[in-house]
């Protein structure tokens, strides 16, 4: 089987979510990568170094600068004439593009796969991860999005793929990029961090959220996350949200501070290797999934912990 993996990048570097998608595709067959963008030589060079990749296709055109699905999908569809599976990370970019490709190919996409069981068989979460479905498809081509936390990352080096330019399919004139507000941060990215410190509504205010969570995260070199309750209360920005409606994470260590453990939050972090919970309510559901729990007042315990680390 010939697979085509969407390389997610910011114009200069490959985003982490790409690597598990490569691993998933490699379970199906040969892996070719697609780098689409404007001025993406460096990204293409880096992509060619990913272990196990045979070829990197590069579509360098202004029409692809901002990942607009209206422009990118026709390009992918053209390349899929000679390939069997299109694979993208289940990020907001992958989720935006892949279904548009699938419908143009008349294929039913399989979303957020957790495992490859066979050439046409996969597992995926439904009902916010409260159930896992094993699905098979009768489509002859595959369109898949991949939950990054479910697959190992392909090695970024060791490969020596050939790089081939492909013709651009043009700007469809349907959409244009106006602007973005991407929060810059010195901390690791939430979805690829080894350690995450997450805060909940119990922190009480935006000031206290930052005063308690940030120093602990900095001490551990951790990313900062938040529960939906904390985000809705305005203590933390949207993109901090961990949960079914936010980001799905599975770090080595997840430290939940003042988070009760609503189902929708657990769905976003329950695959973490070690879960540590600090909460004043000893009956909080978070303790049912935590490997290590500490019951008490977070306003005393968190600064104490930060000082001792």
């Amino acid at each position, binding site marked *: 089987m010939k697979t085509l993996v969407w390389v997610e990048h910011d114009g200069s570097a490959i985003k982490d979510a790409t690597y598990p998608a490569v691993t998933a595709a490699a379970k199906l067959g040969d892996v070719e990568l697609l780098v689409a963008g404007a001025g993406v030589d460096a990204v293409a060079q880096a992509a060619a170094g990913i272990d196990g990749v045979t070829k990197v296709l590069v579509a360098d055109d202004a029409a692809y600068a901002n990942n*607009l*699905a*209206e422009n990118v999908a026709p390009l992918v569809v053209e390349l899929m004439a000679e390939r069997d599976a299109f694979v993208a990370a289940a*990020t*907001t*970019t992958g*989720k*935006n593009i*892949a*279904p*548009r490709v*699938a*419908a*143009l190919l008349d*294929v*039913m*996409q*399989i*979303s957020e796969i957790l495992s490859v069981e066979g050439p046409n*068989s996969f597992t995926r*979460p*439904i*009902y*916010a991860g*409260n*159930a*896992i*479905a*094993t*699905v*098979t*498809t009768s489509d002859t081509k595959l369109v898949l999005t991949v939950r990054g936390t479910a697959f190992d990352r392909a090695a970024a080096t060791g490969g020596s793929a050939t790089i081939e330019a492909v013709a651009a399919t043009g700007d469809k004139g349907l*959409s*244009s990029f*106006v*602007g*973005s*507000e*991407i929060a810059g941060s010195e901390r690791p990215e939430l979805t690829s961090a080894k*350690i995450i410190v997450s805060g909940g509504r119990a922190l009480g205010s935006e000031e206290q959220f930052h005063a308690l969570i940030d120093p602990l995260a900095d001490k*551990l070199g951790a990313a900062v996350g938040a529960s939906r309750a904390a985000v809705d209360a305005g203590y933390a920005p*949207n*993109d901090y949200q961990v949960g079914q*409606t936010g*980001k799905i994470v599975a770090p*080595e260590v997840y430290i939940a501070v003042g988070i009760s453990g609503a*189902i929708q939050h657990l769905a976003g972090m*329950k695959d973490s290797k070690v*879960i*540590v919970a600090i909460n004043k309510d*000893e009956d909080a559901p978070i303790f049912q999934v935590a*490997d*290590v*729990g*500490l019951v*008490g007042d977070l306003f005393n315990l968190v600064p*104490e*912990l930060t000082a*001792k*680390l």
Partner: protein
Amino acid sequence: MKVLVPVKRVLDYNVKPRVKADGTGVDLANVKMSMNPFDEIAVEEAIRLKEKGVATEIVVVSIGEEKAKDTLRTALAMGADRAIHVVSDTKVEPLGVAKLLKAIADEEQPGLVILGKQAIDDDNNQTGQMLAALTGWAQGTFASKVEVQGDKVHVTREVDGGLETVALALPAIVTTDLRLNEPRYASLPNIMKAKSKPLAARTAAEYGVDVTPRLTNVKVEEPAKRQAGVKVADTDELVAKLKTLGVVA
């Protein structure tokens, strides 16, 4: 402009899903069903566009079993003007739904189609993007802000790492994210009034759309359960525990 809003009847988001013992799916017998929360946000957004004078008519659509009519009535009670029910006793996948919606869009000629970004049962997150592909229209997915400006709609999208704004030619497809708005509750008088609003029953065959599923659910299982661990007494013990786990040196 006319706004088309597809809605889906799903297991209520407050109900914990229970996997059936025979592994065929999630038990939906005798449990509370409601409108998919992201679809409620879509209906609300359409109503707000009408209140601003941007939208002139709101048509809601649901595809599914007889009881999907209840969900349509809810949307009508919130403020939609009329409803189309494509009756289907079998499950229709996102691709089939998108094909039906394309046929309805051809008939209705909406300026905007607003959909929930995903249904909370199958979590596919596909239908809006697929409809955009089939209509050849632009798509603004995961919207947290929607502004119609002349012959374009500006959609602010919730993307990994922050927000992004795109300008789309109309007609366009928008899919809603959580923070777009807070849906209203239908008042009792409006619930009564909704009973007399038009609701048309149609079938997939009438639209000439083949909705044969492509996917088969071989089995549905409970996810592996985590075991509760230990509780420590104080931060000293916690630090010691983190050290044995290799988290800190």
